[in-house]
């Protein structure tokens, strides 16, 4: 009895040591395990999507043949819609590339979302094999969405601009007032973030366009959202402005990663 208890405790200790070692090894880039999990999720998602268009086979021959033909045509139609959608998406990113010739964009699709993250982080289907690295800005045609926080071989994790984990230097395009954009629990409910650390005499008005200030991590003038009126924090009375993001983060399906831009340095990376 005593030996059994000791054995159980021993296994607990060994398990915890293994977990600790894996924890140390998994820091930094996304490991093989996470990449595998994300890819399996992608594969599983594709299987369930294709299963939805499979016809019922328990019918006479002729009906079966017609249903098969019908399913093939439906499949082709779905492919056609996918191609049209993909073309529209690529065209939008091509427009961004044309306006910003220094940007190297990598269009990506959102393949899964983290159920434990209240700030809508998600996984995309491009990784370091595609040139994506941790710290790269993630955008859509409507503006900044977030930043890559971890990369695997074929997948990457993205923290959104709603998250308090991201701190983005941003400014009011009209007045030049600058601050740090960071998420908050209450504002994230309304697809908003907060522009904090504003000066006492800032002239931000409701409706002003907020853009990135630029630096090593973000190119300058990336549109983020629209400012609300300046308010004062309940805790420390510091001024801040709520910024409504132009992109609806919760319903994102596709994004583009800026893998390179003028002024980017390798040193400034988001630690994960």
């Amino acid at each position, binding site marked *: 009895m005593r030996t059994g208890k000791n054995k159980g405790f021993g*296994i607990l200790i060994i398990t915890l040591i293994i*977990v600790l070692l894996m924890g140390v090894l998994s820091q930094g880039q996304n490991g093989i*395990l996470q990449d595998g999990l994300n890819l399996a999720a992608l594969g*599983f998602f594709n299987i369930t999507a294709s299963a939805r268009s499979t016809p019922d086979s328990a019918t006479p021959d002729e009906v079966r043949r017609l249903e098969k033909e019908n399913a093939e045509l439906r499949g082709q139609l779905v492919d056609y819609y996918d191609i049209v959608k993909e073309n529209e998406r690529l065209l939008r990113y091509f427009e961004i590339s044309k306006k910003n010739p220094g940007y190297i964009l990598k269009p990506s699709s959102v393949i899964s979302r983290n159920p434990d993250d*209240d700030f809508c982080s998600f996984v995309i289907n491009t990784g370091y094999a595609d040139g994506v690295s941790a710290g790269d800005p993630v955008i859509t045609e409507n503006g900044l969405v977030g930043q890559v926080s971890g990369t695997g071989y074929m997948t990457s994790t993205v923290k959104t601009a709603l998250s308090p984990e991201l701190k983005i230097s941003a400014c009011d395009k009209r007045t030049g007032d600058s601050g740090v954009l960071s998420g908050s629990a209450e504002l994230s409910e309304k697809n908003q973030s907060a522009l904090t650390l504003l000066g006492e005499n800032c002239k931000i008005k409701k409706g002003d366009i907020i853009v990135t200030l630029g630096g090593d991590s973000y190119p300058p003038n990336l549109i983020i959202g629209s400012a609300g009126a300046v308010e004062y924090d309940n805790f420390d009375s510091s001024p801040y402005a709520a910024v409504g993001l132009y992109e609806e983060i919760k319903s994102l399906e596709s994004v583009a990663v800026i893998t390179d831009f003028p002024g980017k340095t390798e040193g400034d990376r988001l630690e994960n």
Partner: protein
Amino acid sequence: MRTEKHPGLCRILLGVEVLFLALINNIIGLTPEILGGRPLVLIAAALTISVCENASVSAVFGAVCGALSDLSFSGGIGFYSFALTVSCYVVSSLLQSRLRSNFVTAALLVFAAVFALITTRYLLFSFSFGLPDSAFLYVRHGISKIILTYFSAFPLYFLNRLLILCLTGKKDAGGAI
């Protein structure tokens, strides 16, 4: 006297179940978002396995489910791996040796474990990032996550219990086996 039938096969099937849950947990639109939260089914799975299995196996499944949760949530092995390993070991040990093993005790213990795990996770997150509105975050998302995770444990409990009873030949003793 217990007659061990196929404990290895049983654990393989439990492992397959855990992997399947890890896959569906992250797929967009597959698990419902109710009142701002989604169920963390891997946590529920690990705790229900620990209700039915011995402490050593529970600790290992806790580590696996925790690691899969961490990998899919944040990218690195972290909080859930450690916390679930210890929680599953404690739940299993308590049910096997300290507490009266029945359905109500098991249900209460699983609720306590889910509550402790998710609340600690929120406290650590708020502490790490110095969130001023962390209480709002917890009320808005945390509580619904606790409730959904707890209720998702019931079907998993009956599934795991059935697997273990059928394949290992263990005797039914109410809550824990």
